[in-house]
């Protein structure tokens, strides 16, 4: 198996010292009948091996679209990547040919999706869908691929894996199905795993199990994990760093404890204030006023300005605030980050 793996590794221009994954100034837009929706407007972040980066934001902020752009599975049309880089070990994936790109998927960067029931093909057995990876990417025989599939199901702790390999997705419970998804994503030992709301569709108790499993598998394999979520509770438990997205931009990036301690952007602050906390029981929760902007009509300047209590004249004018280095390893796109940090 190792020699086959070596063949796969031949990706021109790979630099082992370069960051595992680096996204620079990514722009994605959807061209629809009703206009151009700017889903991602200059997202930038990086990821190191063994690290967990949480991308946090409301629905529609562009976090899932960013993930799909990294994977190269954006529906196009209507989706178009108009600018930016997705560098894996220094190689810009956006410049690769489609067949080279395809070898990166699942081999180097894999992804798991929110709803495992619809993300798995209903008419094929779980075993078929797992074995398919080994057969198409590794050229394994049917029997070998099946054995590997059983091993994988074992690794994600599905009981009686050998007998369940012939079952169809709808015969599994929600949590077990998500485990199958995870097994599928990890099949080819990727270095980066993108998890798009992996636990949103699950019961709370199952959520914890799945997150635990993910964290454990990540540790074993020293994988970089991008966790896309809107759930600040999940983030606090597992993430090392957080990128907060708003209207297609990363508005704040910081190590997880710093951000919970002292948010550097008014939006992050508002998000934190809107989650219920045990220690503040009885106090009124603050909802963020207003709505996220329509992606066809993003406000000038800082996109958050119409909803922001700190906003002053400069916030309403282009260009948008730059990513200020507000502390070591921390950036925030807010002209008034000092006031926000100080409050």
């Amino acid at each position, binding site marked *: 198996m190792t020699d086959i793996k070596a063949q796969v590794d031949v990706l021109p221009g790979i630099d082992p010292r370069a960051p595992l994954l680096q996204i620079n100034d990514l722009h994605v837009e959807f061209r*629809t009948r009703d206009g151009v929706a700017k889903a991602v407007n200059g997202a930038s972040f990086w990821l190191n091996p063994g690290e967990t980066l949480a991308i946090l934001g409301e629905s*529609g902020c562009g976090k899932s679209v960013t993930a799909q752009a990294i994977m190269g599975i954006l*529906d196009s049309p209507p989706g178009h990547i108009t600018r930016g880089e997705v560098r894996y070990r220094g190689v810009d994936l956006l410049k690769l040919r489609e067949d080279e790109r395809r070898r990166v998927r699942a081999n180097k960067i894999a992804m798991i999706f929110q709803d495992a029931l619809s993300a798995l093909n209903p008419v094929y057995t779980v075993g078929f869908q797992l074995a398919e990876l080994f057969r198409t990417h590794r050229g394994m025989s049917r029997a070998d691929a099946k054995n590997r599939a059983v091993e994988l199901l074992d690794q994600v702790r599905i009981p009686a894996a050998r007998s369940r390999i012939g079952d169809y997705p709808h015969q599994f419970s929600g949590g077990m199905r998500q485990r199958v998804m995870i097994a599928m994503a990890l099949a080819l030992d990727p270095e980066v795993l993108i998890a798009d709301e992996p636990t949103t569709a699950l019961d709370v108790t199952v959520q914890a199990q799945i997150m635990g499993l993910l964290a454990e598998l990540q540790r074993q394999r020293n994988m970089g994990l991008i966790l896309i979520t809107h759930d600040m509770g999940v983030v606090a438990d597992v993430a090392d760093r957080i990128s907060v997205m708003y209207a297609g931009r990363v508005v704040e990036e910081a190590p997880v404890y710093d951000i919970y301690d002292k948010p550097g952007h008014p939006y992050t602050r508002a998000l934190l204030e809107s989650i219920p906390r045990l220690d503040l029981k009885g106090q009124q929760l603050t909802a963020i006023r207003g709505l996220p902007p329509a*992606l066809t009509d993003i406000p000038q300047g800082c996109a958050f300005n119409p909803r922001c209590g700190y906003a002053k004249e400069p916030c309403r004018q282009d260009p948008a605030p730059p990513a200020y280095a507000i502390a070591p390893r921390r950036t925030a796109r807010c002209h008034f980050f000092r006031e926000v940090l100080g409050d």
Partner: protein
Amino acid sequence: MSDPTLLATVEGRPRSLAGDAWDDLRRNKIFWASSVLVVVILVMALLPSLFTSADPASCALSNKHKGPTGAAIFGYDSLGCDVFARTVHGTGDSIQVGILSTLLAGLIALFFGLAAGYYGGAVDAVLSRGIDIVLGIPFLLGAVIFSGRLSGPGDDGVTAVTVTLGLLTWTSAARVMRSSVVAAKNQDYVSAARMLGASPARLMFRHILPNAVAPFIVVLTLLLGANIAAEATLSYLGVGLKGDAMSWGLQISEARRQVRVAAAPLVWPSAFLAATVLAFIMLGDAIRDAFDPKLR
């Protein structure tokens, strides 16, 4: 698209489904083309003399198989009748049978669909089996038996064909009605209205029917086209219209044996029939597309 919330934000202000559908229809060229065609066909059915002054029944054997002339632009058939006049006058019976049989089918479907969908349970089981049974008889086979039985000697067969088609073609419309009623009934707002004590009649007419109407009308529009074609088929086989009736199916049947000598008597009724069916299919498609934006 991948991210549903993205669409929601693109959409802008909320509009009603019907208003949206009408906006869509108004911009749809196919809708206008088929509507104009349908109107022309209806006028032709009601007032054939607007289109031709010739009497389709006054034929002179001396004109047998003559080519087109100024008076008879499609020429003459094997009995020396004016093909254009006969084709135009054939519209009436074809359309009448089509519309009336579709209305009959629609009424039966409305009853079966509403009752099965609204009451559910045992009523649904019984009525749905009833639908299965009618579906178990290939349509034309049932029609061949039944239509012949219904029309007496000397009759023109219009009533017989109408009733036959109505009784055998309601099933798909009933299924559509049933499933949209079931879907509407299970909506949260309908449950809410029920809990607030709305009467069954109010539930039905205010909350359930409006949601079921659009797909029902679409099926019936398509069925209208199909029933016009079915009448032609029955007449062609000799169990449809007969005697004084003058439908396109009859004309095709008569013209077929002479086609080597004169093609016009076959071609023109065929063309009119196809154009009519086409008009109703396009109309139904346009309405469906307007109400079902999913497939755009």
